[in-house]
């Protein structure tokens, strides 16, 4: 790492210098994201998981509905990569089917909850007054309402309909904290000149919100949508684990893990293969989320932390200064030059408050 960074960084500064002005914000964020290796790893992982879930099942012989009556509860082998369960279903096919469901639920539910959060938060912040008071009261109410209990109690009602209702319910209990953040950020944006200008020109309120307010909060919304994907997947798993979510004959990673739990010691493949894919999905989403956060907000995490480490090292002593003491300044300058100079970065504004609820679903 120490050897590559300065070269890459110098090359980048050299290349970036002449064209710097013409770069848009999106391109910059993209470039910073691409520079982040863990974030890229996360992205690759997600793409691989999607491919695994949607393409590979067509290439293998066993479908998740098939029973192989000659192999009941046998371990991983050439014919059944992940083994079979007690009724002879191929665990690989089942896991892929479960992964499909979990992916779809996460990828729909995460952005959906962010959308609700953006809409409610922006309306509350923009209109103020009674709209604000009512919406914030609803928000507080939603925080108090025991979400797990309510979805669980309602689950028999949507057991025989579509799982999409389940996704909507999951998202309905997930937007509150983000909405608060969006509200407070909207309040700072709404008095900016361009919003005032739009208003005096007679642009409708909702239009202003969608055209001028929300695009300015894009960074936090994109990061939030990513983080929410992970949260929704975990909530889905939790509910399905107890039989309140995805209903048989359909499977999700949650139901597979629940089915494998009693046999985890004797038939480990029933439990640990679905668990492995769930963890992989979670890690990939977390990597992407963190990468996006750093890419949108260079001053917050990556750049600043590196600066501090450098300062500390400088203070410690000049004697220890190995190759990286020379290397780091280069990388830092590249960061500062490529990032801070051009971008009016909107800090994500996420205090530690955001995550506890993200944990709530799984926290135990």
């Amino acid at each position: 790492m120490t050897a590559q960074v300065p070269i890459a960084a110098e090359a980048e500064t050299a290349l970036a210098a002449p064209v710097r002005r013409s770069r848009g914000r999106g391109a910059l964020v993209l470039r910073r994201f691409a520079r982040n290796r863990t974030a890229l790893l996360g992205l690759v992982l997600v793409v691989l998981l999607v491919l695994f879930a949607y393409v590979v099942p067509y290439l293998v012989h066993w479908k998740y509905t098939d029973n192989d009556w000659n192999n009941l509860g046998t371990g991983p082998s050439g014919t059944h990569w992940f083994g079979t369960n007690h009724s002879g279903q191929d665990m690989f096919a089942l896991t892929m089917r479960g992964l499909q469901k979990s992916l779809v639920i996460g990828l729909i539910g995460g952005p959906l909850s962010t959308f609700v959060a953006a809409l409610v938060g922006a309306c509350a912040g923009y209109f103020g007054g009674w709209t604000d008071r009512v919406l914030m009261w609803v928000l507080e109410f939603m925080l108090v309402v025991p979400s797990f209990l309510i979805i669980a109690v309602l689950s028999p009602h949507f057991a025989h309909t579509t799982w999409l209702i389940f996704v909507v319910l999951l998202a309905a209990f997930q937007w509150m904290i983000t909405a608060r953040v969006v509200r407070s950020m909207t309040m700072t944006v709404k008095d900016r000149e361009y919003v005032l200008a739009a208003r005096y020109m007679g642009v409708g309120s909702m239009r202003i919100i969608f055209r001028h307010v929300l695009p300015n909060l894009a960074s936090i919304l994109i990061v939030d949508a990513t983080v929410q994907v992970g949260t929704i997947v975990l909530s889905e798993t939790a509910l399905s684990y107890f039989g309140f979510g995805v209903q048989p004959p359909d499977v999700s990673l949650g139901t597979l893990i629940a089915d494998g739990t009693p046999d985890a010691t004797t038939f480990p493949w029933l439990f640990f293969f679905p668990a492995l894919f769930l963890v992989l999905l979670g890690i990939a989403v977390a990597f992407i989320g963190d990468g996006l956060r750093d890419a949108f907000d260079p001053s917050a995490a990556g750049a600043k932390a590196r600066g501090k480490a450098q300062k500390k090292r400088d203070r410690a002593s000049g004697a220890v200064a190995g190759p990286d003491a020379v290397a780091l300044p280069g990388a830092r300058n590249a960061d500062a030059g490529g990032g801070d100079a051009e971008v009016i970065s909107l800090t994500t504004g996420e205090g530690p408050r955001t995550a506890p609820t993200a944990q709530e679903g799984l926290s135990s």
Partner: protein
Amino acid sequence: MGRFLLRRAVNYIVLVFLAATGVFFLASVSLHPEVNYLEKHPQPPLASVYTQLHAFNMDPRVPVTTRYWHWLTQLVLHGNFGLDWQGGSVGAEMGRRIFVSTELLLVATILGSVGGVAFGAWNALRQYKPSDRASTLFSYLMLATPVPVVAVTLRTLDNKIGSPIQYTGMYDPRVHGALAVAGNNIEHLVLPTLTLLLVQVTLFSRYQRSTMLDVLGAEFLRTARAKGLTRRQAVLKHGLRTAVIPVMPLLVYNIVLLFTGAVFTESIFGWHGMGEWLVSSIGYNDINSVAAVGIFTAGIVLVAGLLSDVAYAALDPRVRT
């Protein structure tokens, strides 16, 4: 300030009341406690099942509003949570389960908070050293791992290495004698506590690490060093104290919420606490128990919010007015 707090408290009570009402109506409409009786063989006649349920205020023939009014007056005037589907007192059951949850969570939360803060601070001090990188990677892994996977993995490991630690239930019913039961009880605490610890320590240490990193570069630490304190003294006395303040409300919030959040740990390790009740009460279609869980959960969110505000005010002199 006092009036503000009072208004907030009144608002919260209204919110809890509405949430509880909502849960009661939802449970009354969706759950069918008669199923429990119809499973019996020979099947009792439906009329006698309804008569039985009538005594528990769960008779589906009575309009929901009437049942609600009965439930509410009993609750508000007598503090009575009603009866469960077998005729037991829901209030007494709640007391028992709160006790069980407290025993399970007390050690785990204390160790988890202290451990999380210490681990996070230690990692911040050693930023970018191999130990910090390793624990960052580990925490990514832990935070992406759902609790049931952690719990079942620990259980499986316990079986595979043939360790003598028992893990199902609070204690082995075959053990007799107060001291032996207590010892056995502690043995049964090991795996669930470890599960909770792994999750909590990683979560808390991430926050502590980032607040600590912010503090480590601060001017006042340099002042403390200039004053003649060693680095260790300065970090412990001035750095850590400042860095803990923003994490504290989070700790309090999480710990209080854990009382209903330990669903997986309690279910997998067979502890009949509040978290397990959340699932089992729905499984038994037990309307009054579900309503009690609803009140408890809603109430605890408020308590958590208020306590974390108080913790913040108590620690941070800037908030106090």
